[in-house]
């Protein structure tokens, strides 16, 4: 089964090369790429950006760098206006709403020209990821900034080290742009040494990306010229190499009621599981938040954002569709309401602004169990705009009386 080992072709090739020229070439090539990446990172790549969609987000193997997102904000925003950065998950991303019906467009309209609203929500992102990172990294440059995200009641998860969005937190940490007190990533969900490994790898990647601008250059090439990773989300997938600027935001139409409310059993199971997790009854039979959940929430809410950033952070607790909530028993519905009202109170006690969204809304406002339709999005925008204006007054961005932009 064996014979004399052959001299590999690469060995022969390598032997012919002049080492001096190779080292000079590597050094020059790397330096040029860093310079090119540095230049690319200063371009506003995402021209015409309304919100992320799969092919320009990590699920499509496109990982927007910190520079990509901050440059986007710099080009769309203005320091003369109040910057409203929207983070969070698919609910605030506007899944269920077509691009031209997007709720953040309505929010921009209601808030008026003194505000600039940018939707940096990503599917499945935690309130402390993506949009939050950009908001924190820009908090020095844009002192008049409000960050809006959504969360489940009694939940304020830290950015996940092993998740799809942790990379941006590492890059931002390496950049040194984050305010003091920004939390480390959550590696606790993994076994001890695996967590450490993720921290080290993620941290190294963050520093490498920050100094080499590798992601900036790669994203520039992938967005404008040619993409290098196969992705089945691309239609047809065989054309995966096409530049991502040729892709479209293709949110589909919402199905009529009740077809839109699929996954009945699964949805009800999720709802009941959450209620049982959040709420329990005490000896007198009154509802109370599960002490373990409360302790964990308080611990996380304390460190999820720097203290200086908490007053600028507006967390929305969005109800599920009445189609599903209505199927709960009276007792379960009461527990569900209790969890939301308590969630809001505890968030406010932890220093955040909070609002309940979607209570007593109709099925028309929901695209499925959790996401909002265009009408739901409009309602949300109308509901939170006064709260954002009030925050702007409290934070001194707007004078109380005239409600005009402050200095």
């Amino acid at each position, binding site marked *: 089964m064996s014979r004399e080992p052959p001299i590999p072709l690469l060995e022969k090739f390598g032997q012919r090369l002049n*080492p001096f020229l*190779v080292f000079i070439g590597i050094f020059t090539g790397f330096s040029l790429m860093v310079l090119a990446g540095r230049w690319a990172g200063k371009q506003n790549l995402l021209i015409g950006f309304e919100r992320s969609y799969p092919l320009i987000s990590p699920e499509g193997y496109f990982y927007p760098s910190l520079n990509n997102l901050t440059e986007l904000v710099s080009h769309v925003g203005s320091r003369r206006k109040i910057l409203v950065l929207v983070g969070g998950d698919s609910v605030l991303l506007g899944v269920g709403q077509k691009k031209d019906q997007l709720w953040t467009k309505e929010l921009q309209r209601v808030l008026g020209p003194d505000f600039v609203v940018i939707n940096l929500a990503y599917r499945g992102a935690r309130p402390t990821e993506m949009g939050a990172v950009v908001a924190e990294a820009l908090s020095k440059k844009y002192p008049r900034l409000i960050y809006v995200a959504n969360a489940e009641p009694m939940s304020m998860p830290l950015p996940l080290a092993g998740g799809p969005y942790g990379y941006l937190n590492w890059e931002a940490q390496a950049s040194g742009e984050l305010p003091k007190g920004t939390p480390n990533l959550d590696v606790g969900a993994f076994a001890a040494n*695996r967590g450490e490994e993720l921290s080290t790898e993620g941290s190294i990647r963050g520093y490498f990306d920050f100094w080499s601008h590798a992601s900036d250059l790669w994203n520039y090439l992938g967005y404008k010229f040619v993409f290098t990773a196969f992705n089945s989300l691309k239609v047809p997938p065989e054309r995966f190499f096409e530049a991502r600027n040729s892709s479209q935001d293709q949110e589909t139409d919402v199905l009529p009621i009740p077809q839109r409310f699929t996954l009945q059993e699964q949805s009800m199971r999720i709802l009941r599981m959450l209620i049982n997790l959040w709420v329990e009854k005490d000896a007198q039979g009154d509802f109370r938040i599960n002490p373990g959940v409360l302790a964990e929430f308080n611990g996380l809410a304390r460190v999820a954002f720097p203290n200086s950033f908490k007053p600028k952070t507006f967390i929305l607790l969005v109800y599920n569709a009445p189609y599903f909530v209505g199927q709960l028993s009276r007792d379960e519905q009461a527990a569900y309401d209790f969890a939301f009202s308590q969630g809001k109170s505890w968030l406010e006690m932890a220093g955040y602004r909070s609002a309940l969204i979607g209570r007593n809304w109709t099925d028309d406002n929901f695209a499925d169990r959790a996401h909002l339709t265009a009408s739901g999005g409009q309602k949300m925008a109308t509901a939170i705009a006064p709260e954002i204006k009030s925050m702007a007054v409290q934070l001194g961005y707007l004078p109380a009386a005239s409600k005009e932009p402050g200095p």
Partner: protein
Amino acid sequence: MIWLLIACVTFHAHYAGPAGVLPIIVIGIVTYFAGLTRHRIVCLFAIAVCVGALCFYKYTIFFLNGVFGQINPEAGKMASAWAKNILPQAPPLGISFFAFEFVHYLYDVRSGTPPLRNFFQFTGFAIFFPSLVAGPIKRYEQFIPSLKEGLARVNAQDVVVGIVQVAFGYLKKVIADNLTLYLEAYQDRFADLHLDQRWFLFTAIAFRILLDFSGYSDIAIGLARMIGVRLPPNFDWPYFATSIQNFWQRWHMSLSSWIRDYVYIPLGGSRHGHARRILNGLIAFGLCGLWHGAAWNFVLWGLYHGLGLGVCASYRYLPFGFGRNLERIFSKLKPFNWLLTQAFVWLGWLLFFYPVVKALKMARLLFVI
């Protein structure tokens, strides 16, 4: 040498973690001291420890579920639940490679080759970081001189050759990773694809494993070369092979030569007649398959190749001159030999990657519109 050892220990400790390092330290120490004794029984005992550790960490659940569980399902379920409690979540990093290198060391020492008395040299051989995770499987008789000479005389040309090899390795990995994504997207819909797409996917399977594994080997060999150390080559254009035997001279060469020297030949090789030769080949390749993963499809893949080698080695003995005629025809039809060999190897990858029933169904669908 000291700096290299520090780098190796750091690499191993970081990626394997305490639970992964401890078993390797134990079997490493057993191997080192057993080697020093040069005593046949002691070396045999140490070989048993290494093989036992490999079986314990990698194959316990498979044996309990796949073998014992087939005989007594209830007891198998209980035993595997118990085993899951005592076993770590994943086997120690690189345990298959550690076990094979230690077995080689002990076997050769037992056969009279001088052992490594210098503990640092032994450690360097055991945890040399470029080849620690997935080979190539080293032989200490070649590795230690290469290590000494390489570290003393590493030059700019070595670094350049290493860089070239690492760069090509990465390029192969990028292509392989894209093929992986392609396969993930389409393999479950194989039956729904057009015939040409099925063949494309079939080709992608073959190239994915070649580029992935040979890319990794290139990176490992290139990294070693950058510090002056020459590791044995692992791949030599295996898809140009014109017979199954030739394929195994070109594919994962460090493994196939290990299997030959430490399983096939000790079993008797081709020394005890034709039937025994085929049986030895089947055992050797059955174990080779099992080494790749703890599942029946890997065993079957190994047996499939063992059988293929057996047929290759025996067809010329078919009666009435039929075998000789066949041999004469094959010797004149090189392109046909190549096609037959690659068809055999590529169909074998279906067994390697998928459960048997699915693999057979996929193979059938390659010829059905």
